[in-house]
């Protein structure tokens, strides 16, 4: 199973996600990447994130993504 950082790196290899507190504002993820990220998280962790949770604030940084995964019972 990949770590969250590895999933992010797989989507956008050109960025260092450990240096940003807001992936959206820093231009590291756009709307389409958010959808891709959700799909990758679903596959990687065997979960199904619902539409209500597909929000920029839930993927804006590593901490937010980990919090989202906790909600689905995952300890990343």
């Amino acid at each position, binding site marked *: 199973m990949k770590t969250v950082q590895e999933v992010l790196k797989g989507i*956008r*290899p*050109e*960025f*260092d996600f450990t240096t940003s507190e807001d992936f959206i*504002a*820093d*231009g*590291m993820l*756009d*709307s*389409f990447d958010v*959808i891709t990220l959700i799909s990758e998280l679903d596959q990687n962790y065997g979960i*199904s994130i*619902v*539409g*209500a949770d*597909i929000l920029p604030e839930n993927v804006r940084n590593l901490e937010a993504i980990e919090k989202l995964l906790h909600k689905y019972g995952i300890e990343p």
Partner: protein
Amino acid sequence: MNQVPSVAALYEQMARTRRAGPLVTNFYPVPAKLQRSIERGELFSTTAGDVLFVLRRDRDFLHLSFVAGTAEELAAALRELVPSVAETVTVDVLGPRERVAELAELFAPAGFRGHCELHRMTRTTRQEDTPPPPAPPDPEVVFASRDDGPALAAMLETALDRHGEQIPDEDEMTRAAADRKILIVRSGPAIAGLLFFEVTGQSSLLRHWLVAPTHRDQRIGARLMRRYFADCKDVRRFLLWVISENHNAIDRYRHYGYAQDGLIDQVLIRRPS
């Protein structure tokens, strides 16, 4: 169909649609742009079942966005929506090719037909990449001023497809010029070429790159592009959308290091019968 009163009201409608289940949508709102459309009275919304439709007026037609739980719900809601709209409507169906094909099929029974297809192209650089040697200064490539807004908008209006390419209007071009988002080369009182771009953190979207027909083959486009990359030296990801049949433009973008990244925008149109 009701006029959208505020960004908050629209987000509330979206949240109701998103309450459960997966999401089928082409609506990726940017609050500042939504606010501007609302202030100008251009933004409308309506629901059919649990599906939210957002319509934005653009010149003499409407852009349709949707937020649905499933493809089936969207198809049913479209059948309900269409009889109530008497104007030309366009919709951008976005995603990887297979997904786009599936979604586009839902629109055919509601009278939508293919208009054009855009491909996203991306150019990436990594921090460890060696930067290119700095280009010599080119004093003829300058930022447009507010006063150039009308001429810039007219250039785009003449050259582009209003249904397929989301052409900015005079107001948007004037604001963009004031915000130093448009590089130009002048030729006397006229504008020979323009490059309109936006930067968000480490990403940049090339909105439009255009040389007037009377000034082509003079390397004006190349000079604009060189300055763009030089000004955006901290950008890691450059994006743009190009019409799939514009092979000339695609070849030029490839020359500058862009490559198609697999994201497609299928533009569908429904004209009133």
